[in-house]
């Protein structure tokens, strides 16, 4: 529980379930004790262990017991003492899998097994050859050692990567530690939850996770979700009363790690850290179900594919070579070569690196990915169910419209407003602004003068905050205006009055009258008015003006905005002299016949980036569904303003209204949009819901409960969609878990939601999800490119073996040389492809179909293996034959020469010109051949790298130089090749020799051919979409 499986950032690449098994089994044994007979036994164990009596004690006894005070809390010094004694309030991580086991697991996963087999065969043949006294026996020993080294090194790399990811995750959790509101030294403080000690007085409220075991001493409508402890999903209410002997059943204890669903409570910490109930249930602390994400499945599929190819070609050629009367031992050596040539040793490391790079990139863009593979899942998302508040909107009320002087004015609602553009010359506005300023209890927290107004923290409710900021923007220093107009009396808002009222002295020293200002629900305010201010003049409120008011009110309300009415009255000086004592209880002042001044309407405006993001989703084939608890009108208004409901589409109700017919007669199919009320949803069968989800492209669910969110998610999944869901509340957790990808809000999200989610949006912004989708699609594409790039040269490595066996030519490329390509020259270029920018159409495509669109599909494999790979082989063979021919062995001489060529007793081997060669001279020439072959593959891989930048677009459209990392890759590739050839050319064991300079260019025509051919392929794909060519050549 403490420790998420450590491979958060490393992909579950090896996909070998048996690897996991050991771990799972370990845990299962533990589980069998406590989980096997689950709840019952667990409860029994607990009962036995629990010697808690705190729930029986009274408050004062508790104070005594823990040496604390309910009013003052602990002193900091005392708390520090206890902390030193008990240790931090955190669970000791469960005993992790021993590092050595983790390490060994990396050693045997995936391709490693194949390579171990290769190494084993090498050693066996070394043993046999040594016994036979063959001189070259040690080559096989070296080869085995090198293969083992490769496995160990890649294993170490994967292990390191995993360890690093664990650290990344750890650092993230440090960055955002759980906080607890604690009373210490008679002050309320926010402390990190792990600093809590026994005896602390803590306050909790809805949405919080309980920071320790707590004996409650004060509660208000408090309910907790004990599902993590008991499995009961119904929230249970909590009070201060001792209701049950069993501490687990009694109501006055709240347990660590459970969640407070609603209400507030105060309590004394009675247990911390490992001594909490949860801490005692050790089994809960370990083991997380390990579901395979789409990308993990894809990679597993790919590993199977490549391993299958390797093994079948290996076995096939083993049979062929045996039937061609090769010695068994030789055949085994061929088999090793074929396996090594087929396995892309460096690829899995590359994939991991690419995925972590994306995760880092996404973290920069405010998407914190908890589970790396989720990135890709996000890319295949086809429906996003988004919250409204905070995700689509800015999560703060903002004044959107004003109505005075019989006219509606619009206000600026953007995030960073500094002025308001509407006409402020009217004296009515002056009066209105005064009411807005004065009849307001909200205040800025001090010390924020330097912050932009919109960013300042305000003490007060949402509407008042909106009004305060609005007037601060327009009038400047609101607090000093209030100071000049001293408040003498005030009636705060309450639900019976539905108004707020205050009485002020005026800032005009001549004017001794008091000013009564009032705001509230417009119809209530209007009731209390007899006049209305038009252009600064009070005019009687006749029916015509009342009508105008109604129209404006309806219009503003219809936009989903919350409307407030404002009125004022200058109290006559004679009746209310300066010394008059206002009594708010008896209301010894007039509250009717006031002067109506104007209306202000507020809304939580959409984030400015959202409309763009929504339209991006639309073009990306992703359906955006809004799910909100808000009123349908508000929901619809916001949906329209962000484009979830497009400007032209209508709901059934709209059509009915337009055609003036009853709703029932409207053809439902005509309505593209739908606003579904939570009440309707409740009565719907799942078929009806399916019908709605199917028939309408634009859907808004309003007045929904979080539980209904789960129903909606399930409905979407029934349509076969990959669903992403955003959520913040505790109750969203089921939906977040159910969804293919749960996205929690980083700012507003509760801890439960964050835990259930696969991804955390650090800025709560819907647009960041779209960025995530884009990154997800991009990494899928780029991984395709990386794999295509890597697979290609496998053929160029494999063909030499096959031709060597069949045509008996001298070996064109050595096994060790192959490893230098796979793990040397090719690594950086293949990582570089992860930096490739999207091809322009990435967000215009439909989402990936999980079943059909594989990472490695037939086209990719066939195109890489049978076309580009073969071209590379041909290019490399031309170099090979050139090197041999220029040294005296013409191609015709080379055929069938193998046995004598490799016979180390023949030291006067004749070439095509009659010259005679010793065995070592031939071997040295053979290594020159290896080097030439290697260089040719490297050169052609440069071309391969360039063509893999795009799959459809022309390279020139993508830009050769936009991805600088590709060039780093190309230079590194050539640099490594140069070092190997000329730097290490004298180390015999590596089989590299210095190469004549011109041989670097023999394969260049083929490199160009590869490029040109691929450009033609892409051109034809673009020209003839859907054609035979497109179907067979587009990967």
């Amino acid at each position, binding site marked *: 529980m403490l420790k998420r499986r450590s491979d958060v950032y490393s992909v579950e690449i090896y996909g070998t379930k048996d690897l996991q098994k050991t771990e799972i089994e370990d845990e299962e044994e533990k589980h069998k004790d406590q989980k096997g007979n689950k709840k019952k036994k667990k409860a029994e164990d607990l009962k036995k262990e629990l010697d808690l009596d705190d729930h029986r004690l009274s408050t004062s006894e508790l104070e005594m017991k823990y040496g604390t005070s309910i009013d003052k809390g602990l002193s900091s010094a005392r708390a520090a003492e206890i902390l030193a004694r008990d240790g931090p309030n*955190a669970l000791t991580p469960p005993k992790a899998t021993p590092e050595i086991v983790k390490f060994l697991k990396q050693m045997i996963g995936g391709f490693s097994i194949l390579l171990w087999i290769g190494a084993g065969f090498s050693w066996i043949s070394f043993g046999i050859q040594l016994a036979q006294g063959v001189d070259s026996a040690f080559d096989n020993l070296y080869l085995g050692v090198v293969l083992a080294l490769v496995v160990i090194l890649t294993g170490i790399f994967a292990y390191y990567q995993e360890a690093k990811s664990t650290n990344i995750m750890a650092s993230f959790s440090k960055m955002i530690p759980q906080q607890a509101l604690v009373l210490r030294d008679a002050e309320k403080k926010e402390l990190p939850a792990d600093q809590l000690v026994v005896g602390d007085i803590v306050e909790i409220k809805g949405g919080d996770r309980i920071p320790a075991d707590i004996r409650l001493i004060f509660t208000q409508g408090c309910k907790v979700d004990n599902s*993590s402890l008991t499995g009961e999903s119904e929230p249970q209410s909590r009070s201060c009363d001792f209701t049950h002997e069993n501490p687990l059943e009694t109501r006055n204890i709240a347990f660590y790690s459970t969640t407070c669903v609603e209400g507030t409570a105060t309590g004394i910490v009675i247990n911390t850290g490992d001594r909490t109930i949860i801490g005692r249930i050790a089994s809960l602390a370990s083991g997380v179900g390990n*579901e395979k994400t789409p990308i993990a499945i894809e990679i597993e599929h790919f590993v199977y594919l490549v391993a299958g190819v390797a093994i079948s070609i290996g076995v096939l050629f083993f049979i062929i070579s045996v039937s061609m009367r090769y010695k068994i031992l030789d055949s085994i050596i061929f088999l090793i070569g074929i396996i090594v040539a087929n396995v892309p040793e460096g690829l899995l490391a590359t994939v991991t690196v690419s995925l972590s790079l994306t995760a880092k990139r996404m973290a920069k863009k405010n998407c914190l990915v908890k589970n790396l593979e989720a990135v890709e899942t996000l890319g295949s998302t086809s429906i996003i169910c988004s919250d409204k508040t*905070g995700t689509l909107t800015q999560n703060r009320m903002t004044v959107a419209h004003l109505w005075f002087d019989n006219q509606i004015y619009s206000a600026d609602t953007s995030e960073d407003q500094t002025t308001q553009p509407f006409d402020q010359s009217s004296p009515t506005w002056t009066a209105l602004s005064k009411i807005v300023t004065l009849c307001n209890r909200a205040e800025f927290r001090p010390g924020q003068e330097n912050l932009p107004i919109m960013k300042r923290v305000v003490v007060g409710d949402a509407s008042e905050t909106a009004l305060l900021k609005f007037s601060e923007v327009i009038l400047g220093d609101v607090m000093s205006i209030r100071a000049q107009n001293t408040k003498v009396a005030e009636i705060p808002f309450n639900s019976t009055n539905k108004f707020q009222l205050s009485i002020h002295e005026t800032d005009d020293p001549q004017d001794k009258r008091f000013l009564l200002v009032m705001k509230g629900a417009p119809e209530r305010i209007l009731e209390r008015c007899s006049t209305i201010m038009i252009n600064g003049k009070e005019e009687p409120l006749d029916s015509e003006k009342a009508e105008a008011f109604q129209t404006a009110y309806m219009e503003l309300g219809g936009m989903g905005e919350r409307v407030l009415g404002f009125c004022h009255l200058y109290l006559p000086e004679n009746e209310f002299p300066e010394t008059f004592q206002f009594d708010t209880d008896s209301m010894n002042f007039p509250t009717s016949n006031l002067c109506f001044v104007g209306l202000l309407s507020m809304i939580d405006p959409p984030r400015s980036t959202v409309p763009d993001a929504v339209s991006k989703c639309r073009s990306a084939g992703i359906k955006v569904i809004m799910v909100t608890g808000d009123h349908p009108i508000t929901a619809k208004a916001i949906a329209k303003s962000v484009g979830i409901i497009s400007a032209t589409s209508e709901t059934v109700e709209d059509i009915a209204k337009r055609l003036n017919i009853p709703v029932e007669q409207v053809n439902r199919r005509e309505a593209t949009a739908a606003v579904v009320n939570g009440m309707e949803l409740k009565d719907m069968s799942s078929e009806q819901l399916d019908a709605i989800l199917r028939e309408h492209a634009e859907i808004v669910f309003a007045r929904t409960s979080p539980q209904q969110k789960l129903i909606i998610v399930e409905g979407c999944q029934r349509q076969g969609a990959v669903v992403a869901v955003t959520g913040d509340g505790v109750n969203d957790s089921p939906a977040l*878990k159910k969804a293919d990808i749960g996205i929690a809000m980083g700012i507003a999200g509760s*801890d439960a939601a964050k835990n259930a989610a696969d991804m955390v949006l650090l800025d709560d912004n819907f647009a960041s999800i779209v960025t995530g989708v884009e990154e997800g699609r991009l990494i899928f594409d780029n991984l395709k490119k990386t794999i295509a790039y890597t697979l290609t040269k496998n053929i160029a490595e494999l063909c030499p073996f096959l031709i060597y066996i069949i045509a008996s030519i001298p070996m064109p490329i050595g096994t060790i040389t192959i490893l230098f390509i796979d793990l040397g020259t090719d690594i950086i270029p293949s990582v570089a492809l992860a930096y490739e920018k999207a091809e322009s159409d990435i967000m215009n495509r439909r989402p990936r179909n999980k079943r059909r669109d594989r990472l490695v599909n037939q086209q990719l494999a066939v195109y890489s293996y049978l076309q580009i790979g073969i071209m590379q082989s041909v290019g490399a063979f031309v170099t090979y034959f050139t090197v041999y021919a220029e*040294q005296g062995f013409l191609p015709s001489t080379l055929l069938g020469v193998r046995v004598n060529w490799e016979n180390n007793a023949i030291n006067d081997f004749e*070439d095509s010109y*009659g010259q005679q060669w010793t065995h070592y001279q031939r071997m040295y020439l053979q290594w020159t051949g290896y080097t030439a072959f290697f260089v040719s593959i490297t050169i052609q891989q440069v071309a391969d790298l360039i063509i893999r930048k795009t799959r459809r677009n022309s390279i020139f459209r993508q830009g050769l130089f936009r991805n600088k990392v590709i060039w780093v890759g190309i230079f590194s590739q050539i640099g490594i090749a140069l070092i190997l050839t000329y730097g290490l050319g004298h180390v*015999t064991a590596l089989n590299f020799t210095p190469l004549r300079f011109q041989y670097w260019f023999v394969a260049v025509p083929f490199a160009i051919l590869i490029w040109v051919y691929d450009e033609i392929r892409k051109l034809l794909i673009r020209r003839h979409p859907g054609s035979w060519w497109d179907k067979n050549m587009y990967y």
Partner: protein
Amino acid sequence: MEAAIICNLRVHGQGENKHEEKVQDPDREKHEPKADMGSKTWADLAGEMKIFLWNPEERTCLGRTAKSWGLILLFYFIFYTCLAGMFAFCLYVMLLTLSPYTPRYRDRVSPPGVMIRPYLNGFTIAFNVSQPNTWQPYVDSMHHFLAAYDDKVQEEKNIECVPGQYFIQGGSDSEEKKACQFKRSLLQNCSGIQDPTFGYSRGQPCILLKMNRIIGYRPGAGVPVSVECKVQKGNESHLRSVDFYPGNGTFDLMYYPYYGKFTHVNYTSPLVAMHFTDVQRNHLVPIQCSLHGKGIINDLNSDRFLGRIIFTLSIGK
């Protein structure tokens, strides 16, 4: 307004709680590890495979219809034909640039390596004097090898040259070159003329040493390359005397340079015969014979046949 206040409370409540904690939701553990992909039974797999191999409904084999197969095979036929054409063209162009008489580079084949005759499966020459069947194969091999050096043959095909200087023949590359005579009789006691057993019958075996041919190579840079033999590792007294023929065991300069097998058709490599007249009997005597001369390398660890050769003599009674 009321709604506003409630809403506000909610927002604040969540705001306070924005921190992700280290502990994770225990609920997650309740998930059973998801059933693996591999949970399909073998029967299912076999069924799928069968459909994949031949789908009678859509009449597809390996996922393609006959027409589709036809098209794809046609494509690959054309594709590979073009590639093969390009491959052949490249090789053709490359071969055009090569001279048929002299390879472009000779750096890998020089300096010359050394071989011995008789050579029968390895470099150990072991026989018992008293058992002719143990040395007869060596003798046969020698005779066979020396057939080309018969004086008659040599006189018929080759010319006599001026000893002590390189036999440099000008003219164009394609002109046929003359070869110098190397008569078997030059090998004297090892010629097999007087003693058709090459000394094997007396326990004094002859072994022929030849230097690898390299086109244009002029060994010794003006001074003939000589041969020297000694015991390699072991008691030096085991090898008491060796006679060399012809001369003092030198390769005469007149046999060089070599012009390649197309123009220098009748070229016969000069030989040095080593007559091991006094070798310790009943012992394995490892012998290293090496070339000496300017430009000759005979101490390269990795190549034990470069400028030297190591073989073992084991002469029994």
